[in-house]
């Protein structure tokens, strides 16, 4: 398969139909879209179990069974269904959650915003606000990740012209790399759609080979770009994560240095006292002095060990940073005058 298809299960709560495994582009898992319903909260156990053990990926859609979005569907108790978003197979892109919203009427916009606010509080940020409009046929709708075209779900018996129109629209809408949403009623409908998809793909293979080669090359590059973006995100996370800790660590280290000096000063003072003429040098003193010295020595060692632990930790964390980041750090040092430019090449 060249393209990725996601099946929007219109009648999920009526027939509980989930398509069998359907390998789409690049061997990705079957992905489905489930309309959000208050049933999710009502039968939470059943749906959590079903979706937890699933081999497919899924996302939610605010699209009540193909008809317009209703106020009721927006009042589902978002906190109660937030847990579904955390199932590992919920579709995410770069840490954001795919949530499809269908045709928002002006009077419903407030509820959608409310739903979003609820989700934000749980750390769930939907991928895009540029929502789809599945119900408003026959317009083709697109957002950053999904694409819907009424020709895919069309009941008409497909023809070459049909495929050709669809492909031309996809190219025009820059939709080749997006999840193509296929609206499915039930098993029979799914089989029909499946046949359509297979035939469409075959048609593309036979008639649009150059486009496809170009598309695949683009996809590869895009994947690489995504990977780099991801790596960058991870790095940023690591830096953010340890920033606070480093501040604390600096405080702790400073305390240890002060303590080290204090103990040294105390030790020096004691040794000076012992040289004062007439100072009691009886055995008890010698013994207590010895003990005190030993204790100070121990304390010193412990402070030294702590300092080494801090250094070790810092080195370990520093090691984890990629080379380019470290180099960048040195460049900054040069800019700040803390290091010579020449030293970078030593």
């Amino acid at each position, binding site marked *: 398969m060249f393209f990725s298809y996601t099946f929007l299960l219109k009648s999920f709560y009526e027939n509980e139909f989930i398509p069998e495994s359907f390998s789409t582009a690049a061997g990705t898992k079957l992905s489905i879209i489930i309309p959000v319903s208050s049933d999710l909260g009502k039968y939470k156990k059943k749906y959590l179990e079903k979706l937890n053990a699933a081999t497919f990926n899924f996302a939610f859609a605010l699209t009540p069974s193909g008809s317009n979005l209703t106020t009721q569907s927006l009042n589902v108790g978002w906190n109660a269904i937030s847990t579904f978003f955390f199932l*590992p197979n919920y579709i995410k892109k770069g840490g954001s959650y795919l949530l499809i919203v269908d045709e928002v009427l002006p009077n419903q916009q407030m509820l959608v915003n409310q739903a979003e606010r609820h989700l934000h509080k749980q*750390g769930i940020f939907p991928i895009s606000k540029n929502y789809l409009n599945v119900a408003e046929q026959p317009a083709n709708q697109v957002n950053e990740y999904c694409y819907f075209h009424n020709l895919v779900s069309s009941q008409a018996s497909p023809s070459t012209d049909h495929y050709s129109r669809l492909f031309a629209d996809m190219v025009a809408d820059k939709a080749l790399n997006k999840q193509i949403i296929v609206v499915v009623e039930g098993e029979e409908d799914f089989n029909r759609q499946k046949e359509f998809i297979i035939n469409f793909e075959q048609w593309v293979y036979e008639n649009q080979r150059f486009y496809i080669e170009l598309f695949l090359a683009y996809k590869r590059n895009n994947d690489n770009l995504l990977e780099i973006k991801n790596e960058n995100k991870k790095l940023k996370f690591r830096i953010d994560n340890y920033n606070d800790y480093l501040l604390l660590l600096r405080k702790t280290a400073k305390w240890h240095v002060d303590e080290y000096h204090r103990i040294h000063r105390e030790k020096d003072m004691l040794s000076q006292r012992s040289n004062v003429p007439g100072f009691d040098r009886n055995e008890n003193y010698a013994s207590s002095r010895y003990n005190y010295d030993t204790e100070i020595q121990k304390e010193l060692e412990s402070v030294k060990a702590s300092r080494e632990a801090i250094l070790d930790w810092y080195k370990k964390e520093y090691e984890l940073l990629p080379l380019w980041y470290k180099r960048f750090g040195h460049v900054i040092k040069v800019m700040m005058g803390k290091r010579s430019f020449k030293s970078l090449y030593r």
Partner: protein
Amino acid sequence: METVPQKFRQDNNKKAEAFTIFHNNEAQTSDKLCLFAGYSFTGEVADYVLYYLDAISKEGYKIAYISTSNIKEACIEKLKETCFLIIEKENAGLDFASWQCGLKQCNWGQDYKHILIANDSVFGPFLPLGPIILTMNKRYDMWGMTDNYDIAYHIQSYFVHFSEKVIKSSVWLIFWQGMETEGVSKEEIIRRFEVGLSVKMSEARFNIGVHTSIDTLIKSSGGGNNQISPPLVYWQSLIKKFSFPFLKRELLISTTISKAYWSKHIYINTNNWRRVVAQESDYPVKLIDEFLQKHFQHTGSTNHRLKTKQRKIIFVCESVQDSDSQRVLLSFLEWVKREKSLPFEIIISSKKVSNELTDQLLTLGLVTFFGGLSGVEKNELKERLSAESVGLVFSNAIENVEVQQYLDFLSVPQVVYAHASLFDGATSPLTEASKSWVKENATRIIVATRSLKERINLHFGKNWDEIELIPAFTDEPNELNEEHSLPAHHYLSGIRKDIFFVGICNSLSERMSAELIPALIAMLCKENKSIHIIWLGVDASHSLFETLDNNLYKAGVHDQVHFVSSNRAGAQIFNSLHVFLLPSNDVSLSLINLKLGLRGVPFVCFENSEWASEYLEAGMGKAVPYLDLNGMVKAVLFYYQNRDHLQSEKDRIAAITRKNYLTDIQAPRLWDLLEPHYDESEVVPDNSPVVAILVHIFYDDTWKELKFKLNFFKDKNAQFLFSISEACLIKEDLVKDIRTSFKNAYILTTANIGKDIGGKFALIDFYLSLELESDYIIFLHDKQSPHSLIGEEWKNNLQKIIEYKNYNQILRTFEQDQKVGIVGAKEHLISEYDNTNHTFLNNNDKIHEFLRRYNISITNYEFFGGTMYWVRTSIIRTFFMKHNPMEIRSELEAGNVLDNHGSTNAHTWERVLSWVASGQGYRLQGI
């Protein structure tokens, strides 16, 4: 004829006793009466009971069946086939009240010459009862199957037979007619009636006795306690040696049977009962299986704790040194895990060593390093294992005898799979005592080489007829797909591709290696510059290494020799070799040879190489006379000069190795040898508390350690729920690994809100939504405090609640004091409350607000810092059913929040979560 139940209210001395007669066929005539007491857990009379009744009936007994549970109509019809009288009575007074009730309906037995009282507490009979009854009747007036001296000498009441002499005596009538069970405790009924019956009959000078007396059993088995129940403790020898016809039902359904006499240092193991019964009788074992299945299903539906599990296998491993025996065991364990899914754990004979092999074993299951255990720890281990229902001990070396002796208390078969040839010298690696223990107790010996079999027989002076040979085996390497022409290693890169690589494996510790091998190399390489040697396993720090290096230099072949330490001898090295040389007789190199064999590399060795004979016979290599270096060189040169032949050999050798020495070939054979000693179909009930483990993972380098610790809980009644932070860098890998390692685990990948507290709230919601049932919840997370110098110590303290050695102590703490609500690390049980001004050191404003908002009123403000502890599930359920955990979560701060700069909801909840328990009247207990 339709049954018309007759209801009776029978006036006893004090209170009316109700019973119903469902069937009474007076037409049956016999002078033999059996009063059979039954109780059905499910309302159905089990088929094993009908079988037993049929066997009694066949001996000419009229049977009165007295049930203390409701009997279904269909069962009454079945009972009518063997019973003339069917009574249902209230469940009181134990079996004695049932027998009394039946006797009363039968004129106190005065019309009979023989009376048998029996119950459904045994499976059987495994043999016809006729001959036993005939013999015993001749000897005794009153007799049973077993006896003991608990309280006083008595016949155990599950099967007691009385002769006419007794029945017609006044003692009989006085005993039964005067029996009062109303309001009498179980212990007192046993004392007064079970023990009392034998005492009274003895006092009346009747001749009493049993089929197999406890004195006989003690004499036969060497035990010493006569106050135990023989059919429990001696069930196996009774059936095997004494033609005993019964197996106590309690043995198979009790969850605590193994430790019934633990205080008397007796451990009961019911391992292999199916095979024992099947081998000793024609009894249809499926009757027991069916009963057990229904019974556990029924009790499991009313008790969420009750589960059944297969018996555990203990694998004893010699050490974690990288050797053939350890590697073969590892392959076998992986196979067992993959193919059998049986519970097992690993005991290493040696002290703890952290290395790659240890990690691999830890991934597979719980690992104990026996060599490092103190006396106290050994006792703790014994205590733990005694509750584990072990079915088999498998040892990978005869040298593990100390551990095997220690495990002797389990009374399970112990199988040894010997690899190393430690028996080659005159000295024995074992003490005489150990030797004699192995001789007497090793159930089965399996060897990896034929010569080892002879040596073992010679060494132990015993001919183990059944010693089986299972050669060492290895896994199909994944890297076989790699290009064969790849350079062996980065330090071999740059070498011409037409080089002929000859492998040699020697660590320099073997005799003559520093002299003999350089000579051999010189003979091979001096004239043939295209031949290079890859010397595996060399120790560069060895004292002889410099001499060796010099010798090679002097011989002018230095540049043609590449040293590779054994741990770097990976796939690429193996792939590049053309021939493998083994110029030593005393090294076991089976696995290296097999790895090379899979790549089609032929080997050349000296004749009579002990380990090599099987491989030579299989056609994987050539042998030359001992120390015939010329012959060895010629053999190598033959391959060197005939590359086409070498190529054809390659495919043939690879095919032979694959056909004979892969894990998938040999592991099932090895399993077949264990199979007679371990019955996979046997299950044991497990009533241990259900623990739900809620784990939040944030960091990318903590999982391995946590996973190893959690492995212990896999064999327990545990439910695993994981929350992996979205911010975790390896979350996809973690999800994958958790799914593989913890079957049926529930996983969330939670957005980074409220740190571990946010993850835990999401998990609480997940747990409650899934309607899981557990007795306790354990909260855990992968604690790291890089800003603190004692962060590692904090983590270890906090996570001691999942150390397996603390498991029993924690459970005891909860069970002994119902007011203990939370158990955690004592080091982290802290209070930040200042009594003088009623403030908290940290998060003061929010704490006051939360306590008000959630109506928590307490006086003790101690809490467990770190939020890792065991808590009673009821506490969490009660609170969070009222306060939606996801609502609470939505108020937590996002990101990696610290409370150094002011109060945070997340840190406040860290404290308040403990007070949820205090607020419900529970207290916090540190361990």
